């Protein structure tokens, strides 16, 4: 007959408590609208995977994976743009593959750099952007607006079909 040691029991209890805390955190994020239903499902699957693990180390490893995934969802680091040929499209068209990952830190650094541009040069940039169809005012983009922009980007997810190509834009 085998009995679990007190240390093993305590480890299991700590892992279970951490898992419950993670599930609660995921549900709170979902209700607050910080993550989508798909992301919540993915995270909950990770936690349930940890609960089904037989040993405490597996559960705690999954809990830490969930924590890192939650942190990743709440604090995305990159914008990813993927363009792939639409497999359902017919016809002989050019097939392009694009995979671009842009660090979000570039946006903040770019705004800091842009704030140092002299007024004359800034006006020239603004005119050029207007000519290209961008009607925003770059001079109004400050640190607080930037924080709002980055926060809004966390919910960014675009799936579109353009010229027989699938275009996906999301943050990760």
């Amino acid at each position, binding site marked *: 007959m085998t009995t679990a040691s007190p240390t093993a029991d305590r480890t299991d209890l700590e892992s279970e408590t951490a898992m419950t805390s993670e599930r609660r955190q995921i549900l709170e994020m979902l209700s607050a609208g910080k993550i989508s239903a798909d992301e919540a499902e993915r995270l909950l699957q990770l936690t349930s995977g940890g609960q089904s693990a037989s040993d405490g180390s597996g559960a705690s490893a999954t809990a830490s994976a969930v924590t890192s995934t939650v942190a990743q969802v709440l604090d995305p680091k990159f914008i990813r743009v993927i363009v792939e040929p639409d497999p359902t499209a017919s016809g002989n068209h050019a097939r392009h593959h694009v995979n671009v990952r842009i660090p979000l830190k570039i946006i903040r650094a770019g705004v800091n*750099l842009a704030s140092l541009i002299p007024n004359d040069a800034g006006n020239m940039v603004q005119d050029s952007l207007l000519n290209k169809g961008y009607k925003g005012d770059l001079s109004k983009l400050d640190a607080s607006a930037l924080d709002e922009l980055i926060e809004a980007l966390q919910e960014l997810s675009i799936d579109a079909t353009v010229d027989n190509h699938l275009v996906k834009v999301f943050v990760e």
Partner: protein
Amino acid sequence: MIPPMVMWIKIQWFGIWIPLFLLWPIVLVLLLLFLPLAFLGMAIAGRLSKFWVVLRIILAAYSMVCSVRGLQIEIQKENRTLEIYLP
């Protein structure tokens, strides 16, 4: 903040790792030579306030270079390929 140390670039079939870490010491030496001269020149010209603007631009540019880490670009168009990666 650490600038990217290497850069992978591939055009068509030709790919190469560029050792950027060799570039940064040279840039640092040039800056150390340039900044005192710029400071003196602007002090003599009575436009010392411009020096601080230059200094802020250099720091912002350095921050921009550091933030490029993680950038990944892969473009394939028929037989043409372009890859850029800054780990």
